[in-house]
């Protein structure tokens, strides 16, 4: 089963949920798809020993001798990755979406596509949890397109594993890429107006993708939770877990320790959370049959 953990707002606790859940189950594959800022490895204490795989995308290179400055390619490019300046064709690789249109349209064969590294995929080993398979994607600084990195990372997912994907915050393309193929979406929010506002965006996204979803309220406080609970009831989103706003949890987080390791009972709660999700996914399957 594939489970994606996402949130509209950053800093709500996606990493906390992903890591603590992964450490509470057996036969897990954890994929950190927050490729602009992967940080699961910090809480896991993961070590990267094997060489990383490079993620490449194709970008145009120009043979200026063959280029006749016809500008067809510049006009074709919807992303403005090309410019013609004083008969010199310039390429802006960070903007390019690798569609290959420029090389197709060039009447003189002046444009060839070449690979360019934009990120990497690495496997981390977690001391004491050798059974937990962990991979992360990482976008190179300065690159603008995270999707190819997320895409290559997700190709590693194994059907026989409990695959947990930690998606990028927000609802842009890299988040959608990490979410679209999942069996279930676990949305993480906090009981604040910002948390609610961005949760609504994430719920919209999940709805449009036609996926099942459930909610985790992090930094939960009974006096403020109604903000989220009322909305969840309104849209029919089940609340599957509340993580209390507690000093002990914050202290452990600050020290880089997943709280399931130190606080009794929480492994069982995360394990129950997973069982609930499995039940909801299989209910959906039996209903649709």
């Amino acid at each position, binding site marked *: 089963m594939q489970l994606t953990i996402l949130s509209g707002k950053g800093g709500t606790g996606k990493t906390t949920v992903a890591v603590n859940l992964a450490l509470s189950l057996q036969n897990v594959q954890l994929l950190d798809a927050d490729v*602009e800022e992967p940080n699961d490895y910090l809480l896991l204490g993961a070590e990267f020993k094997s060489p990383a795989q490079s993620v490449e995308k194709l970008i145009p290179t120009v043979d200026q001798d063959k280029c006749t400055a016809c500008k067809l390619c*510049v006009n074709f490019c*919807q*992303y*403005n*990755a*090309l*410019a*013609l*300046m*004083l008969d*010199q064709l*310039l390429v*802006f690789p*960070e*903007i390019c979406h690798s569609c290959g249109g420029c090389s197709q349209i060039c009447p003189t064969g002046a444009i060839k596509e070449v690979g360019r590294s934009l990120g990497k995929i690495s496997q981390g080993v977690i001391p004491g949890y050798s059974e937990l398979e962990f991979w992360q994607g990482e*976008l*190179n*600084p*300065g*690159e*603008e397109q995270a999707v190819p990195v997320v895409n290559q990372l997700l190709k590693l997912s194994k059907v026989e594993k409990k695959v947990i994907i930690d998606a990028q915050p927000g609802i842009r393309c890299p988040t959608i890429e990490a979410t679209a193929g999942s069996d279930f979406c676990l949305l993480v929010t906090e009981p604040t107006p910002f948390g609610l506002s961005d949760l609504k965006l994430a719920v919209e996204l999940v709805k449009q993708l036609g996926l099942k979803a459930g909610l985790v309220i992090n930094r939960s406080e009974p006096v403020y939770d109604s903000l989220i609970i009322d909305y969840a009831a309104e849209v029919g989103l089940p609340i599957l877990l509340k993580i209390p706003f507690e000093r002990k949890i914050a202290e452990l987080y600050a020290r880089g320790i997943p709280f399931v390791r130190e606080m009794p009972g929480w492994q069982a709660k995360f394990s129950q959370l997973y069982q609930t999700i499995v039940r909801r996914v299989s209910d959906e399957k039996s209903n649709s049959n």
Partner: protein
Amino acid sequence: MRIVISLAENEGETSKVALQFGRASYLGVKADKTPARIIVNPGQSKQSGAGVAAAQAVVEPPLQGEVLLTGSVGPKAWQALKAGQLNIYQLTAAEKTLAEAVAAFEAGKLVQLTVSKKPGLANKAGF
């Protein structure tokens, strides 16, 4: 000399200037004694590569600029404008309108930009 100015509105010589280049609403050109010509900046509405699209417009008809007056230029637009051999001068808060910007340039009051002033989002990634 053909002077291009980044603009926030299309109101002839009294148009307010825009201090950002790539996403400026309009681009205007002032050549010698002829009235200013103003076009919509094609970069303004682009999903990506706004600066590159705006730079492309600066070198092409009807603008065909030799000099650009603007507030700040992102790194990609900078690279394109330099390849197009544009001389770029920086507008300040003192120049409010197209006419004032051109007058300040002609009086030699504007500073020529020699490096891209704005790092752009791309250069901030990873920090």
